[in-house]
């Protein structure tokens, strides 16, 4: 019986008797241990193991990748079995658990397409002044070609105060005259300009709202989880109450209340979205911290008399925050979606601000002639959809990585 118990421990990496830190992936393996690891199956078999135990150990040893090729069976060594697993610098830096998340993200085609879309939009945002040269003092305001109310279809030439022609235009089209590439909305706002610069608006609102919601969520969630008891109870009831209220409606009303105070800008809508958007992150970080605060190193810190706030901010949050940060990054898609929805409803940005939701809102005045003015809907709508889809595709991969039931089952 005793022998069997010993035989259960087949992987020295998981052997609790081994000195701990030396075998963390990412740590330097000392020379003499390397030799031991390179030993054959004899290394795992204790003297006195029965035949069946040896067989089982053999079957449980990892097999080399290629079928048939390479060493097999009896003389398989751990070093060979793991020869394909080089520990990269990234893994060393992130740690094994977080590295698995990052790797899972780049595994499927769907998430790769998602990353591609995000990078593409980031490039458009960065090079916006080159793609669509700004006019006037505020580059975020869409340039207008006169004030006529009828929208103009894509390809109609600029008539009044045409902006500087971007460098790429002539070489691609061979045309000297700057046109409305994607048409104009009512009031002759240039849709192409709005779509390009709207990318910047999207990233700006997405990042700011997301960072603020995560900060609030993390602070409240970790305080609730760490102190527990009545604090936890009260904070979580507050979360429940906030969650009862419909998000878009409350954000819309809060923005409407704030607009007279702050003026028409990005601010009212962003503040409103932050005020009603933090609850999800508070819940996620709370459940992560509940498991981490039972770990030995937290106990050790407590026993050695470290202050509560220091334990929370130095020991617990850094170890618990990675999943929240990844989730939060991917939440940017839905933040941008909600922001566009608010602009579409006519709340938030001033008239003429480069913002996809607002261009789409222009279409509301032409509901009877949308077959003629389809370009007001299709171009900003497609851009917004692709932007959100990029984040959602990556987000889907993240969910699979985090959900242990889905692990290892591919797409």
């Amino acid at each position: 019986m005793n022998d069997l118990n010993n035989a259960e421990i087949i992987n020295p990496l998981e052997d609790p008797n081994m000195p701990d830190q030396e075998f963390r992936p990412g740590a330097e393996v000392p020379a003499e241990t390397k030799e031991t690891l390179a030993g054959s199956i004899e290394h795992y078999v204790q003297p006195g193991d029965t035949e069946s135990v040896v067989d089982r150990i053999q079957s449980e040893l990892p097999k080399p990748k290629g079928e048939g090729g390479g060493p097999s069976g009896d003389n398989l060594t751990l070093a060979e079995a793991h020869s394909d697993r080089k520990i990269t610098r990234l893994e060393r830096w992130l740690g094994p658990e977080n590295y698995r998340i990052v790797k899972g993200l780049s595994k499927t085609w769907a998430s790769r397409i998602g990353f591609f879309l995000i990078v593409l939009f980031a490039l458009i945002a960065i090079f916006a002044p080159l793609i669509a040269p700004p006019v006037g003092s505020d580059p975020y305001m869409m340039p207008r070609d006169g004030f006529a109310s009828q929208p103009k279809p894509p390809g109609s030439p600029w008539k009044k105060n045409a902006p500087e022609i971007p460098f790429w235009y002539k070489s691609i089209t061979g045309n000297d005259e700057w046109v409305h590439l994607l048409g104009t909305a009512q009031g002759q706002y240039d849709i192409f300009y709005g779509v390009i610069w709207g990318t910047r608006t999207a990233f700006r609102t997405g990042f700011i709202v997301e960072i603020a919601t995560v900060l609030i969520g993390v602070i409240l969630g970790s305080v609730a989880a760490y102190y527990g008891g009545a604090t936890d109870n009260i904070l979580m009831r507050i979360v429940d109450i906030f969650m009862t209220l419909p998000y878009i409606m409350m954000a819309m009303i809060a923005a409407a209340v704030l607009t007279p105070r702050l003026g028409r800008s990005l601010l009212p809508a962003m503040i409103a979205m932050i005020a009603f958007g933090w609850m999800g992150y508070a819940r996620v970080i709370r459940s992560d911290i509940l498991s981490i605060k039972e770990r030995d190193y937290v106990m050790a810190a407590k026993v050695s008399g470290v202050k509560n706030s220091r334990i929370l901010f130095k020991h617990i949050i850094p170890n618990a925050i990675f999943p929240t940060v990844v989730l939060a990054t991917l939440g940017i898609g839905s933040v941008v979606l909600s922001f566009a929805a608010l602009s579409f409803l006519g709340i938030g940005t001033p008239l003429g601000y480069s913002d996809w939701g607002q261009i789409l809102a222009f279409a509301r005045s032409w509901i009877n002639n949308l077959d003629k003015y389809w370009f007001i809907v299709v171009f900003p709508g497609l851009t917004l959809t692709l932007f959100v889809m990029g984040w959602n595709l990556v987000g889907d991969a993240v969910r699979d990585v985090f959900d242990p039931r889905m692990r290892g089952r591919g797409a």
Partner: protein
Amino acid sequence: MTNYIIRRLLQIPLLLFGVTIIIFGLLGLLSPIERSALYIRDVPRNDNQINAVIRQYALDKPLPVQYWRWLVGTVDINGVRHGGILFGDFGYSRTASQPVLQIIQARFPNTLDLALWTMYPMLAVGIWMGVKAAVYQNKWPDQAARMFSIVGTSFPTFVFGLLMLIFFYAQLHWFLPGKMSDWVTKIMYSGELKQYTHLLSIDALLNGRLDVFWDAMRHMIMPIITLSYINWATFVRVMRSSMLETLRQDYVVTARAKGLKEGVVINQHARPNAMLPVVTMAGMSIVGLLGGVIITETVFNYPGIGKAAADAASQLDVVTSVGMAIFTGFILILSNLVVDILYAFIDPRVRLS
């Protein structure tokens, strides 16, 4: 069971308190003068009038007093109650020139009508697709459902709605935005159509007017498709993973080992059990539909609660939009309660825990 219901009922005052506090907090951002607009119906003639209102509604008193007055209002010497959201006085809408409660009474049946007709396609198709995706895991129906669900969650409601308007309204003229055609409005006001329920589609059926019913459907079909579509995306995902979980259970293996037909195993053994998480979600979705679907209603000009709130908010009419928010909050709390109790009837694990 009784215990569970009582416990759940005891949460209601707490939730109501929390929701009203949050909304009151929003109002707290306004100055007393702006807040006095909550109670004034005509343009005030002078400062005295405003000050009288401020005093009458305790807008210059400490916050707890203000909150209490806001909840129950005041009774003047003639015994007439002024204000008091708990008594249904949500204030007077400046933009619609009528009391907020009247807007709600006029608009809520429309929202209810839409929710009623959205429920069926939303549930039936969502569950059907989720089951197919799970049964054919990693084959083309699964991939298709997955793609569908990703596109569905990424497609902004208003873009989807506007695209539908381009094709089905502006181009083909099959379906219409709004609530009813002009000739139906005439019939309504002439009293030819008896209004039993104030839900247009139901009233049309009760009156035996199929032409009116057809007109109502032509106006509702685009919002129905839009709302179903965005909900399908999540239903498919939840139903699929729950079904996959169920298909691995021992009793499913037993049923298969007994030699039952695959269809029987799936439809009678696996699916009913896999539906429990979907029941919760369905409850939440229906509650969401009742709470007014702001964006969908706005895109299609459908005159429900959501559009009323959006119209008010975009004109910065705080009184009306806050009234809508309180009403929606009440509706959500109540319908959540109903859903939870129904759920306890379905799943014994809930009421016994």
